[in-house]
């Protein structure tokens, strides 16, 4: 695992796909937020965060992810996570991220999930 978190991204239609690699702490969270907001500004409606190369998230990282989630919800968009370790999955559920963001096992499922029309 990298010492500092690296974030890469790609746009697929109105979904922005973000990959993280490393520790999601203050620095990692800021990287994610910067990349996410940039895609939202450019019209992305939904975000998918693939965390398969991340094994640690701290509370600062979680609070930033919550800010990103709020920003997406303000815009009536959707956010989904995939590739979570069991520990991070449980962390997100306890910390309330899973209440508004959806968690999927695979990236394809996540993309399909946020692309599906909401009822």
């Amino acid at each position, binding site marked *: *695992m990298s*010492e*500092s978190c690296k974030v890469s991204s790609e746009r697929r239609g109105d979904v922005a796909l973000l990959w993280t690699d490393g*520790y999601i*702490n*203050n620095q990692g969270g800021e990287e994610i*937020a910067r990349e996410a*907001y940039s895609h939202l500004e450019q019209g992305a409606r939904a975000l998918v965060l693939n965390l398969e190369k991340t*094994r*640690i*998230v*701290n*509370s*600062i990282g979680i*609070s*930033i992810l*919550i*800010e990103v989630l709020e*920003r997406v919800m*303000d*815009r*009536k968009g959707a956010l989904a996570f995939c590739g979570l370790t069991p*520990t991070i999955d*449980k*962390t997100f559920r*306890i*910390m*309330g991220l899973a209440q508004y963001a959806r968690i999927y096992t695979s990236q394809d499922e996540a993309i399909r999930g946020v692309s599906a029309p909401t009822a």
Partner: protein
Amino acid sequence: MTVPAPISPATRTVDLWKRVGAVLGGEGPLPVRVAEAALLVTGARDATLYLRERDAWIRTGENLAEGAAPEEVPEPLPPGVFRREGDLWIPLEAEGELHGMLRILDAPPAELPENSAMLAFLLGSLVGAHRLSRQVREAEFELKARLLELESLYDLGLSLGGQLDLSALADEVLFRSISLTDAGKGTLILFEESAAVLLARSVGGEVLAAEDAAGWALPEGGVINNAAAAGPTAGMQLGTCEKCLAVAISVPGRRLGVLAVADKESRDGRVLDFSATDARLLSLFANQAAGAIETARLHKDAIEKERFERELELAAAIQRELLPHDLPVVPGLEIAARNVPTRQVGGDYFDFFPLSQGRLGFIVADVSGKGVPAALLVSTVHAAVHLQIDEAKTVADLIGRIDRHLQRYAATRKFLTCFFGLLEPDTGQLRYVSAGHNPALLRHRSGEIEQVRATGVPLGMFPNSTWKEESLVIAPGDLLCVYSDGITEALDASDEEFGLDRLGLLLGAGSPSEICGNVFDAVRAFAAEVPQYDDQTLMLLRRADRVG
């Protein structure tokens, strides 16, 4: 042409507040909506909202909140709405508490808009409610974080309980420790029993160097050093970090490792002090880790022991193949021999070599040490004797050749004693070399017992050694007894040895095969329940009585 009816001020006011309501209830971050509503009411072109956060002003906008520059918000604040350098400042208060300041940039210099008071009240209430809501959410977040700590301790216990891979176990403990203390970096080091480093892991950077960790003296409960940048922690200089927290991973009587985290993060980028709560949490992790690490280590030891025993069994099987399956049949000779290893793999070896002209070669050897190394040497001796016996001119020459073979090829630096004899059954002529071996016993028909002593040093001990070859005659009815010290040095409960005398007394009655059985029975009865640590080998050769 119809003249439109004039719009009344009341209608305009209602319309304005409807539009304000639509903006405030719309999408986007609240600070942006507040600023837009203010622009609607004041007719100005730009506005900024400052929120009071922990005694500091935060400028809010579309992107992440930013700290306001010094003196950006004029303090001390005049009471109520005021003007400053062309901007209109509106305090946003609710229930007597100031929540924020709305700054209308380049507001028209005319009198204050008539709706300012209403605007201030409305936005103040909204920002206050927003702030309260955020405080509730922060409190809820803190509560969830504590719940996460408890769940993590529970999960760690479950997960470590079944984790026997030390490396995965170390990762699990380190990741959770860093995560739950909000540390920027962390290091976990585990020691061998010898205090050498068994494993070292770091995330985010090295808090302490593995080679330094063994020197750390950590009290129970760990050490918090919130001035680590300024000086050593627990007597040791750390890597590059500002603040650190370190705890020992230990079980009663032994330190297993060190767990250290450093540089607790905050949302605004500051490095926070570690607290006693952090130290308690890390200590709990370390305690759980210690139990699991000890279990994993015991499991690893058990696996290694099992593997070692499998190797021993294999070596024993190989060694059994080295011993003769059948005794040679030599006219005029009665022969018996038996080997009882005390462990799976012993260090004793015996063999027979039927040679030309009816001669019989035989060897009894005792290798120093036990287990696989001894078995390897036995195997080397076996190979050497079989390779050299046809080439050697004399017994002494054969022993010399075997010794040189061992000096050159033996994988382990061990030595062996041996008795090698070359017997002509027709004449009873025995030529022999005893390389440091226990005295063989020659029991004459008369009952007299003669000791056949060593003629040189053990094999493999000194380079360029030589051995003297001796000879004797085994008369008809005489019995030659060659044995390893596992027979004569077998101990009873009072540490008394079985000894040569007891062995000698047993040589008189019965055939060699019966004597062999009697000797082993007697040794077993003598030792009773006392465990024996040396292999036992016995070889008996009796020259048949002359007929008539």
